[in-house]
């Protein structure tokens, strides 16, 4: 924990595409945000010379701006999508090329809800997506955490994104007679409001076969890999506790002669996507490690292996889905809990894949890209 962090009460965050005039139609206010962290670092390089002990020149490098936003999943556009509003393909490659401008509005403290232009705005332009993380906990709200990186940050008294025109578009509804905010989750009716454990649509999810095997003891090859984790009576087969999906673009600056700012901050492909699934353990993990590979994979493309390639898809009631493709490999299994204190034994299955994560949100993605549902 940083000892010298500064807390600001912020009341609205907006995104807009880069390299375009910011208009009220292309500037979108993020909903369901919980907190935002901004770290700015100034990098110095010192040059000395023979003949004097004093410094020859203090060379200031590029400032690094890193902003992390945490949001509950509530039916409104995801931060990942707001930060890549003009992506042309839904997968990581397409989204990673996008840049966005971000505005954090600090509004008048006498108001219950935002109205009019932000009196003070922190404006960051040319922000690249740097990392993503989604959590679906058994206890609490499903959340999204997105980190953006860039090199430009300004504090303004004349807002560029959270202008009165943008606020007046009704993106943050307000009762003008009382000044009360009327915003509520977009997925309020029929899809559970803020998404929680009961809003994971198990009938559409694809859970890795190795997890189903840990419960039923069936051979992996005999378990079908298709959507649906429900038994006939609607009770999930796998008693999943927590799911987390994360990836880091690991961006590297590509510089060029003639200018200080990077020509591009390229993602460090291949990008690893990891998924951790914690399951209540009913009979051990059934994951075997055999030198010569599991016999059941003989005469298949997984011959000689202990782990097969598996599909993972998580679908929520609010219309968002997280498709990790079909090439996920089990990278580790951890068995824990079940202590003398009466805690439940649980098994955490960690999967990894590369360059494959399609996050879709039907109907609300500003880029209008609907990924396949597996």
């Amino acid at each position, binding site marked *: 924990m940083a000892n010298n962090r500064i807390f600001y009460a912020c009341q609205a965050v907006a995104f807009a595409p880069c390299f375009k005039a910011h208009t009220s139609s292309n500037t979108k206010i993020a909903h369901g945000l919980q907190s935002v962290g901004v770290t700015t670092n100034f990098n110095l390089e010192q040059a000395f010379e023979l003949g004097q002990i004093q410094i020859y020149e*203090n060379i200031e490098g590029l400032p690094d701006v890193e902003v992390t936003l945490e949001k509950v999943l509530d039916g409104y556009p995801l931060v990942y999508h707001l930060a890549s509003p003009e992506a042309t393909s839904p997968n990581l490659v397409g989204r990673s090329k996008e840049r966005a401008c971000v505005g954090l509005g600090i509004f008048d403290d006498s108001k219950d809800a935002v109205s009019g232009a932000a009196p003070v705005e*922190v404006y960051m332009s040319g922000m690249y997506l740097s990392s993503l993380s989604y959590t679906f906990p058994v206890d609490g709200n499903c959340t999204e955490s997105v980190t953006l990186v860039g090199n430009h940050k300004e504090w303004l008294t004349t807002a560029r994104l959270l202008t009165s025109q943008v606020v007046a578009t009704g993106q943050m509804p307000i009762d003008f007679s009382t000044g009360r905010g009327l915003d509520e989750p977009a997925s309020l009716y029929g899809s559970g409001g803020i998404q929680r454990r009961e809003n994971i649509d198990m009938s559409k999810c694809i859970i890795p076969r190795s997890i189903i095997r840990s419960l039923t003891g069936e051979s992996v090859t005999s378990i079908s890999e298709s959507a649906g984790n429900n038994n006939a009576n609607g009770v999930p087969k796998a008693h999943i506790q927590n799911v987390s999906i994360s990836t880091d673009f690991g961006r590297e600056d590509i510089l060029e002669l003639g200018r200080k700012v990077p020509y591009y901050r390229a993602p460090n492909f291949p990008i690893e996507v990891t998924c951790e699934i914690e399951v209540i353990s009913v009979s051990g993990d059934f994951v075997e490690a055999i030198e010569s590979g599991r016999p059941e994979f003989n005469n298949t493309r997984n011959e000689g292996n202990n782990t097969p390639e598996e599909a993972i898809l998580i679908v929520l009631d609010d219309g968002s889905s997280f498709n990790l493709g079909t090439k996920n490999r089990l990278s580790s299994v951890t068995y824990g809990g079940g202590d003398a204190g009466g805690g439940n034994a649980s098994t955490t299955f960690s999967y990894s894949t590369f360059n494959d994560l399609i996050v879709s949100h039907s109907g609300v993605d500003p880029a209008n890209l609907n990924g396949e549902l597996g």
Partner: protein
Amino acid sequence: MKHHERELFIYTLRTGKVFIQCEDLELVVIPATFEQNIRSLQIYNKAYEQAYAEEIMTESETLLWMKEKDLWNDEDDEKIKGLEKDIERLKVEIYNARNNDNLKERIRLYIRAGEKQLQEKVDEKTQYFSNTCEGIAATEKTFYIIKNTTYLNRELYNFEKISLPQVLSEWQNSILSEKQYRELARTEPWKSIWTIKNKVNTSLFENPSNTDLTYNQKNLVIWSQMYDNIQESLDCPTNDVINDDDMLDGWFIIQGKKRDKERAEKEFEDGVKSDKIKNASEVFVMANGSKDKDRIDGMNNVHGQTIKNQRMALIKRKGSVEQHQFMDEKLRVQTQATQMYKDHVKGGR
């Protein structure tokens, strides 16, 4: 208060009775029984409903009427809030100036002036209270209590020689001020009675059976317990502070703010999953209204608050400021450069 005055207060207070000497009569008002209290509340409700039926205004309606007649306005409410805040700030200042006698006494004068102004404003706001449904009902309730608990020579008094309002006024005068409770709670003879109460199994109050503690008794116990808690606090202030109500109030405010800050920080730490946000140098927390904004602002330490103020002043002056133009960032870069230089020189040895 002198010792003999305190003694009289304490022994009177321990009986739960109020002794009223008027003309040549010595009346005694005893605490109401539970049944009498219930009956008085029933009378309150009935009087309230009756007044309401007779189209007498309630307290909130009276306030609206005062606003209509320009006898009160929102600015007056703001003034009350402002005065309360000012007094709070001054009490913190007097605590901070506890080692500077001159400054301390100067601040005390401001506190008294502020309290006087606040009292005047509150009196102005509540000047029509007795004409409201609540005021009428409260009077009826108190009249019932006084009528049924005032004795002369062990017999209920008939209010012939001394009128009911006169007895009521004397009875109201027997209710002590907060300053008096505090003084009684921390000084003799009460202090030793309170300390030994469990050791010698003595009862603090000799109220008649079937009666509740009186308002004075409750407040004395609350303040006695409060002083015990202060003594047990890890940050217990010195006796000079404990014995000075203004400075002790300042200490309470500081401790309260400290606890609020810790609570808000804990809520933040528990609520935010991302370590990147927790470790960020600037954290933006979504605020729901002005109260929440105060809570979030309160999470800043003095250093953070100073930086925020400096930054906001610069932003307002210039209109557009880049991060590196902030004084704190300049200082940070300078410190970083100095550290790098030190490392370079040390590394060269």
